[in-house]
């Protein structure tokens, strides 16, 4: 698509589909007709200038396509009449109601309670915002075919059950609003985190979501959650001008130039939030808006009231106990009370099968482990996050962190959402710049004071050196960490596996590692209880010394049935599919090397 057509596509797709859907009552037909019109526009508009009214042109062409389509399906009754009406251009009587905005009608149809809740957002992103099925499938972590089937089923239900394209009447509106708010919020999130591809902030999705939120606030001015949502979107969107570099890469919250934040949006957002809070019915959107307001009103990153934010996230978690909320709460707690406190929350989330599949939980945990100097565990956590297929921008960041830990220095790309460690680093830079001492100098000040209790150190730094509370808190915590003993190294952990009777097995281990490390530079190891985990992007093998005088090699080979010495892992270790027993160097032969290599390849 040419960039000109693409701009029109982003702006007009939703409205065109909404108009055609209202005229035909058939969302699938409407979508096809508008897609055909855009396909035609690509050819027509490439040659010359845009028509004076591109949207009008598109809708007219889409109507013609719809008429053709309806005529082809003559077995459907009532089609000729509908076709005739489309040709004449005479709209059917408009349903009554306050709102005549086409897109609001469409969103109320897409969020109808007779549709499965899981499909409503997807349907809105497809029909109103023009996202492709592939993009939506990725956002929902399902396969493209699955998503396509869900969308088709929903569109058929709307057509066959005659779900109306209409804003509900006044008494029905309260019950129908929640589902729409949720969808508007997710449309904004989709634009904000730019899942469509690296380096793109899809401004249109954010603008569209804010526009819809404004219309909803006009519709229901006394609903605090509607106001809360609008405030949240405005306060978050205010940061947009500072969120990307000139070449489109994301800039983390602590590093953003706050002078470029949109003051008008912050002003409007806080005002609307105040109005919502005055109604005294708090809810998730108001709480999230309050968190966004904490960021928006802090003069710099170091001035952020993390204790307040942690408290707001705790309140939010009682409304919405989702992994993302818990992870964010952990980050805020880490900022307010130190990395160890945040880590405790994340450890629980990683141990819970309901939340351990979220890359964000592992990425946050990796960041805190790194801050605490627990490098080997941090590397493991970064790999766990990467294995869960994060969006490209976050993948780049996690990779660079990982290679940093693996001592392959590479320029650090700041391309992801803020983690606690990022926030702490920014805060440290601010403290050093603001109060004119480096961290080691501050540690010396604390050591010289002879104080050891955290609260006493904080009080001393505030009273004698003029530090703000947040800064004093951070300096004191970092000083404690600096005094803590260094963590055990990975080599030491392997040595620990081969002590006593197992010491004689070490040559077999080393020989196996020589074979495996020859596969490529991306082989890494992580010591586990009783064995050494061997990984690429994912774990693919392990080596475990056995008391019976041999070494067991665990493998992950999905497509090879066990046979002979390539045994099924069975109860040996549930994380692996196969086991090979290695009693002597002769057992490390080409067959075993091939199996290891196959496992290595499939972990790439």
């Amino acid at each position, binding site marked *: 698509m040419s960039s000109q057509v693409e701009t029109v596509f982003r702006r007009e797709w939703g409205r065109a589909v909404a108009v055609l859907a209202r005229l035909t*009552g058939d969302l699938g037909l409407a979508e096809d007709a508008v897609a055909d019109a855009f396909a035609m526009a690509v050819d027509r508009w490439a040659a010359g200038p845009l028509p004076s009214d591109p949207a009008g042109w598109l809708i007219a062409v889409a109507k013609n396509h719809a008429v053709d389509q309806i005529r082809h399906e003559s077995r459907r009754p*009532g089609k000729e*009449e509908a076709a005739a009406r489309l040709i004449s251009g005479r709209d059917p009587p408009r349903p009554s109601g306050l709102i005549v905005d086409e897109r609001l009608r469409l969103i109320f149809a897409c969020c109808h309670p007779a549709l499965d809740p899981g499909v409503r957002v997807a349907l809105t992103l497809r029909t109103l915002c023009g996202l492709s099925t592939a993009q939506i499938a990725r956002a929902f972590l399902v396969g493209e075919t699955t998503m396509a089937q869900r969308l088709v089923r929903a569109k058929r239900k709307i057509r066959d*059950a005659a*779900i*109306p394209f209409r804003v509900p009447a006044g008494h029905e509106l309260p019950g129908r609003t929640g589902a729409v708010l949720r969808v508007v919020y997710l449309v904004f999130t989709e634009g904000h985190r730019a899942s469509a591809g690296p380096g793109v902030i899809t401004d249109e999705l954010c603008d569209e979501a804010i526009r819809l939120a404004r219309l909803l606030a006009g519709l229901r001015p006394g609903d605090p959650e509607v106001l809360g949502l609008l405030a949240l979107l405005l306060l978050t969107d205010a940061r947009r001008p500072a969120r990307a570099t000139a070449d489109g890469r994301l800039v983390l919250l602590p590093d953003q130039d706050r002078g470029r934040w949109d003051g008008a949006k912050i002003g409007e957002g806080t005002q609307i939030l105040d109005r919502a809070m005055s109604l005294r019915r708090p809810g998730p959107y108001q709480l999230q808006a309050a968190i966004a307001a904490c960021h928006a009103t802090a003069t710099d990153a170091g001035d952020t009231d993390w204790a307040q934010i942690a408290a707001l996230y705790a309140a939010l978690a009682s409304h919405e106990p989702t992994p993302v909320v818990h992870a964010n709460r952990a980050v805020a707690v880490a900022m307010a009370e130190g990395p160890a406190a945040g880590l405790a929350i994340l450890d629980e989330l990683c141990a819970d099968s309901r939340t351990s599949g979220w890359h964000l939980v592992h990425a946050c945990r990796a960041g805190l482990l790194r801050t605490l100097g627990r490098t080997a565990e941090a590397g493991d956590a970064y790999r766990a996050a990467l294995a869960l297929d994060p969006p490209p921008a976050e993948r780049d960041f996690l990779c660079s962190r990982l290679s940093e830990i693996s001592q392959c220095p590479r320029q650090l790309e700041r391309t992801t959402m803020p983690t606690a460690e990022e926030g702490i680093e920014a805060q440290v830079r601010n403290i050093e710049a603001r109060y004119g001492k480096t961290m080691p100098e501050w540690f010396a000040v604390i050591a010289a004071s002879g104080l050891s209790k955290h609260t006493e150190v904080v009080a001393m730094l505030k009273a004698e050196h003029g530090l703000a509370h947040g800064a004093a808190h951070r300096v004191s915590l970092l000083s404690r960490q600096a005094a803590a003993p260094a963590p055990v190294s990975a080599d030491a952990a392997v040595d620990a596996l081969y002590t006593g009777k197992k010491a004689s097995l070490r040559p077999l281990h080393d020989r196996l590692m020589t074979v495996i490390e020859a596969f490529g530079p991306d082989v890494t190891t992580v010591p586990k209880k009783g064995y050494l985990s061997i990984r690429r992007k994912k774990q693919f093998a392990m080596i475990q010394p056995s008391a019976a005088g041999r070494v067991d090699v665990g493998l992950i080979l999905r497509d090879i049935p066990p046979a002979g010495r390539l045994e099924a892992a069975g109860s040996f270790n549930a994380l692996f599919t196969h086991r090979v027993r290695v009693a002597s160097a002769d057992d490390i032969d080409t067959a075993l090397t091939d199996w290891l290599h196959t496992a290595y390849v499939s972990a790439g």
Partner: protein
Amino acid sequence: MGAGRRETSMRYLLLLVGEPDMDDPVPGSPEFMQMLSDYQAATQAMATAGVLVDSGPLQPPTAATTIRVRDGEPLLTDGPFAELKEQIGGYYVLDCADLDGALRWAATIPAARFGCIEIRPLMMPPDQG
């Protein structure tokens, strides 16, 4: 079907389903009399609004007979087509502009309180059949 439905209209079959776990009013009790009069009021309102096509209560499934014709031979079974815990106790056929209309009327039928109502659009709009 969907197209042009705002000027034609849709037909919906409402299946009134009794759920075994619900406490239905006992025949003869004041609650039962109230339920009957609620049915009457709902049906009357539908007729007045011009949406009612047909309606009726059903005899219990013990009165049902099921027929299948195989190789030209009728095969009869005593009882309903499927042994369900839920029992279909009655039906309405309504003429409405869209699903929201059908839902509003369905909510006025007592069966929605004492069990559930399944709403199925009919394949053919009435004036096309």
